[in-house]
C-alpha cells in the first residue's frame, strides 16, 4: 500500500484525505455545538421552571394567608354589624361614636404580637383600621392612637367612590417620609342586619406578607409594585430603579396578570416574576414582585457548559482520530483509482513512445529500402550491360555463351526484385499514389495469358478462362497489371505438371471480381495466415520466391480500392480472389 502510495500522486491523495477529515470534523463540531445549545436551553428552562415553582409556592402561602385573613375579617365585620352600638353610631347619625363603640370589639386587632404565618391569621394583627361612611368616605377617628396612625395621604387612599359590597384587597403606600412602606389593606363591607344594605365598611391595614423567609440564602427578593412605584425593601436604590423600569415597561405594554422576565442588575442576570395580587379590586392594581438572582444557576450553567465543552473536546479528539482513520480507509479506493490512472498514463506514454519509435523505424527502413534499391540498381545495370557486351563477342566457346545467358537471366530477375522493393518502399513511405483511370481488365488478362504461353519454359498446364468482355476497373494500368502478373505467375509457378489454371472475371455489385485458381500442392493451413506477410514465401518446397510478391499485390489491390484474399487452398486447389472497383469504360474518373 505505502509503496503504491508513493507511486500515486501523494499530494492529491493527501488533499482528499484532509478534506474528508475536515468534513467529518465539521459535522462532529456541529453536533457538539447543538448539544451545547440544547443543554444550555434545558438548564435555563429548568432554572426558570424551578424558580417559577418557588414563586408559586410563595404565592400560594400568600394566598392562604389572605384567605384566612379575609375569612376572619368577614366574620369580624358580620359580628360588628350585629352590634347595636355600631348600628346606633352608623344609623343614628353618631359617627363620632363609631370608633369608641368598635374600640372594644376591635381591640385585639391592634394588640398582640406579630406571629408567624401559620398563626398570623388567627390573631389578625393589624397596623390600623378605619371605618368608611355610607358614601365610602373615611370616617376620621377621634384618637388615631387607638386605631393606628396613618398619614392623611395614606388615609385618602382608603376611600371609595361607592361602598363596595365585596371584600376588596389593596396595597397602599404609607406616604411616611421616614419609612415609606406598602401596607396591605382589606376592605370589608358591613351590612345592615335589617335591610341587608351596605351601610359601612371596615378597612383594616396589615403589614404585607413578606415571602422568601424560607429560602433566604437564595438571595431572592420580594416586593410590591403599586401605583407605579416599587417597594423592594431588601434591595439597593439602583437595583430597585432597574426593576421598576423593567416592570413599568412590561406593564405598560400589556396589562398582564402575571408574567416573568429576565433582567440584568448591576451586570448579574436576574429572573423577575410578578403577579397581580388583587384582580378585580376597586383598589389600584398591585403586583407581587419576585427577583431571583440567577448567579447560582449561571454558575451551574457555566459548570455544565464546561462539562459539555470538555466532553465535546474529547469527542472532537476521538473524532479527529476516528476521522483520520475513516478518511484513510474511505480514501483507499480513491488512491487505488489514482494509482491505476497513473499506471494507465504510464502505459499509454510507453505505447505512444513505442509507436513513435516504430514509426521512426519504419520510415527509416523504408528510406533504407529505397536507398538500397537505388544503390543496387546501378551495379546491376552495369553488370547486365557488361554481360550483354560479352554475349555480343563471337570468340567464346559455346559453353561460355550458355553460361553468360544464365547470368544475364539472373540480372533480369535481380532487376525485378529491386523494382519490387523500390515500389514497396515507396508504398511504405506513403509516397505512392495510384490514379483512378479506367483500365480494361479483360484486355490486360488476355495480353498476360498470351505472354504466359509465349514464355520459353511454358508449363504443361491447361488454362481455362471465363472473362467478361470489356470489364473496366478504376486504377492505373501499370500497377493493375502488376497484380495480374503476380497472380498468374504464382498460378503457373506453384502448379503441377498436367495441372490447370482457371481464370474467372465478372462484375458484381459495382465491383469486378477476378479469381485465379490453380492445381498443385495446397499451402499449409498454418502458413495460410501468413502468406501476405512480407518476406514470407509460400514455400511449398518445390519452388521458392523472394517473398514480397503477394504482399505487394495485396497492397496494390488495396490502393486500388479493392482487396486480395486467399479463397481456398486444399485438395490440390488453391484459389485467390482480387476485387477492384468497377468503372464504366469511357468515363475518365470514378469518384
Amino acid at each position, binding site marked *: 500500500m505505502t509503496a503504491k502510495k508513493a507511486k500515486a500522486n501523494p499530494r492529491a491523495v493527501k488533499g482528499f484525505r484532509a478534506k474528508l477529515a475536515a468534513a467529518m470534523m465539521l459535522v462532529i463540531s456541529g453536533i457538539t455545538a447543538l448539544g451545547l445549545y440544547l443543554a444550555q436551553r434545558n438548564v435555563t428552562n429548568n432554572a426558570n421552571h424551578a424558580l417559577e415553582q418557588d414563586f408559586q409556592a410563595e404565592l400560594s402561602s400568600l394566598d392562604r394567608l389572605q384567605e384566612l385573613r379575609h375569612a376572619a375579617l368577614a366574620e369580624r365585620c358580620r359580628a360588628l354589624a350585629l352590634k347595636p352600638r355600631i348600628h*346606633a353610631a352608623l344609623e*343614628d347619625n353618631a359617627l363620632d361614636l363609631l370608633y369608641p363603640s368598635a374600640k372594644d370589639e376591635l381591640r385585639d386587632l391592634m394588640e398582640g404580637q406579630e406571629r408567624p404565618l401559620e398563626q398570623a391569621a388567627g390573631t389578625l394583627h393589624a397596623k390600623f383600621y378605619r371605618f368608611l361612611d355610607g358614601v365610602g368616605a373615611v370616617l376620621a377617628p377621634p384618637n388615631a392612637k387607638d386605631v393606628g396612625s396613618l398619614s392623611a395621604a395614606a388615609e385618602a387612599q382608603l376611600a371609595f367612590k361607592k361602598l363596595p359590597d365585596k371584600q376588596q384587597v389593596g396595597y397602599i403606600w404609607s406616604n411616611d417620609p421616614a419609612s415609606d412602606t406598602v401596607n396591605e389593606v382589606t376592605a370589608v363591607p358591613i351590612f345592615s342586619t335589617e335591610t341587608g344594605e351596605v351601610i359601612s365598611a371596615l378597612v383594616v391595614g396589615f403589614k404585607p406578607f413578606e415571602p422568601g423567609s424560607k429560602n433566604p440564602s437564595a438571595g431572592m427578593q420580594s416586593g410590591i409594585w403599586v401605583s407605579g412605584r416599587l417597594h423592594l425593601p431588601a434591595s439597593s436604590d439602583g437595583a430597585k430603579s432597574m426593576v421598576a423600569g423593567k416592570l413599568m415597561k412590561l406593564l405598560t405594554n400589556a396589562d398582564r396578570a402575571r408574567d416573568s422576565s429576565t433582567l440584568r442588575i448591576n451586570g448579574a442576570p436576574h429572573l423577575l416574576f410578578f403577579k397581580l395580587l388583587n384582580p378585580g379590586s376597586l383598589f389600584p392594581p398591585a403586583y407581587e414582585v419576585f427577583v431571583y438572582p440567577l448567579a447560582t444557576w449561571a454558575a451551574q450553567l457555566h459548570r455544565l457548559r464546561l462539562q459539555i465543552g470538555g466532553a465535546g473536546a474529547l469527542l472532537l479528539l476521538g473524532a479527529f482520530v476516528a476521522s483520520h482513520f475513516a478518511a484513510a480507509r474511505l480514501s483507499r479506493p480513491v488512491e487505488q483509482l489514482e494509482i491505476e490512472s497513473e499506471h494507465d498514463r504510464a502505459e499509454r506514454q510507453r505505447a505512444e513512445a513505442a509507436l513513435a519509435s516504430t514509426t521512426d523505424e519504419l520510415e527509416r527502413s523504408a528510406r533504407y529500402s529505397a536507398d538500397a534499391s537505388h544503390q543496387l540498381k546501378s551495379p546491376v545495370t552495369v553488370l547486365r550491360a557488361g554481360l550483354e557486351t560479352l554475349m555480343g563477342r563471337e570468340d567464346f566457346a559455346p559453353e561460355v555463351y550458355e553460361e553468360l545467358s544464365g547470368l544475364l537471366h539472373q540480372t533480369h530477375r535481380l532487376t525485378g526484385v529491386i523494382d519490387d522493393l523500390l515500389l514497396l518502399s515507396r508504398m511504405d513511405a506513403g509516397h505512392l499514389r495510384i490514379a483512378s483511370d479506367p483500365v480494361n481488365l479483360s484486355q490486360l488478362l488476355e495480353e498476360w495469358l498470351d505472354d504466359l504461353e509465349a514464355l520459353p519454359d511454358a508449363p504443361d498446364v491447361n488454362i481455362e478462362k471465363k472473362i467478361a468482355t470489356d470489364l473496366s476497373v478504376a486504377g492505373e494500368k501499370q500497377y493493375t497489371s502488376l497484380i495480374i502478373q503476380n497472380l498468374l505467375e504464382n498460378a503457373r509457378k506453384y502448379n503441377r505438371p498436367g495441372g490447370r489454371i482457371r481464370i474467372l472475371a465478372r462484375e458484381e455489385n459495382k465491383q469486378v471480381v477476378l479469381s485465379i485458381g490453380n492445381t498443385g500442392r495446397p499451402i499449409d493451413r498454418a502458413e495460410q495466415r501468413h502468406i501476405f506477410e512480407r518476406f514470407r514465401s509460400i514455400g511449398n518446397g518445390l519452388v521458392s520466391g523472394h517473398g514480397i510478391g503477394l504482399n505487394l499485390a495485396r497492397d496494390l489491390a488495396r490502393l486500388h480500392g479493392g482487396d486480395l484474399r486467399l479463397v481456398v487452398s486444399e485438395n490440390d486447389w488453391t484459389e485467390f480472389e482480387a476485387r477492384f472497383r468497377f468503372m464504366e469504360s469511357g468515363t475518365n474518373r470514378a469518384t
Partner: protein
Amino acid sequence: MRLRRLFWCGVILAPFPAFAEAIAEGVVQLPESRSGPVIAKRYEIVSKGETLSTQPPLAVVYLDGSFTKPASAPKRQVAQKDLEFLPPLLPVQVGTRVEFPNLDDTYHSIFSYSPAKRFDLGRYRPEERPIPSEVFDAPGLVTLRCDIHEHMRGLILVLNTPHFVITAPDGRFRLRGLPSGHYTLKAWIDSRTTREKPVDLKSGQTVHVDFP
C-alpha cells in the same frame, strides 16, 4: 286614686268645655301597612334605608309652637317586655323624665346615640331600683336600643309642645284642650316625614284637619 282625680277634674271642668278649649280632629293618611291588618296589636320600630317608623304605621299629631314647660317634670315609662320596647313609640314634652323598667327575666342595656339625647343606662336587672330613667330636655327623635338585644328598637319623640296625640291605626286623631290662636298642626309619620298644616283655633270650636 288616679280615677278619682280624673273624676273630680271632670266635675270641675264640665260647665266650660265648649269655651275653654279648641279641638282639632281629622285623619292622617298613613303609609300602606306591609303586614296587613293588625291583630296582635304589637307594634315595632323598623328602619328602611335610614328611615325609622312604626310597623304597622302610626303617626303622632302635635300642635307646634312654644309652650311653657311644666313646673314639675312629667314622668313617662318605656318598659322592656318580651324583648320589646313598650310602647315602641312615645311622644313626650321636653323635660319629661322617662323611666325604663325591665319587665323581662334578663338583663337589658338601654342606650341611645341619637343627637337629641345620648345616654347609656348600662346593664341592669329587672329588680334594679330606682328604675333607670333619663330626662329628655332637647326636642328630637331618640332611638332606643339595647346593647344586649340588637333587634330591640324604640322611639321617643321629644316635642316642645304638651299637645300631641298618637293616631289610631286607621289614622284618625282627636286633639283636645288646644289653646286659641294661629298655630301649625304637624303630623310626624316617620323619622323623615313630618307633614304640617296651619290651623286657626278658636275656643269651643272643633277644627277638622286631614293630612293626605
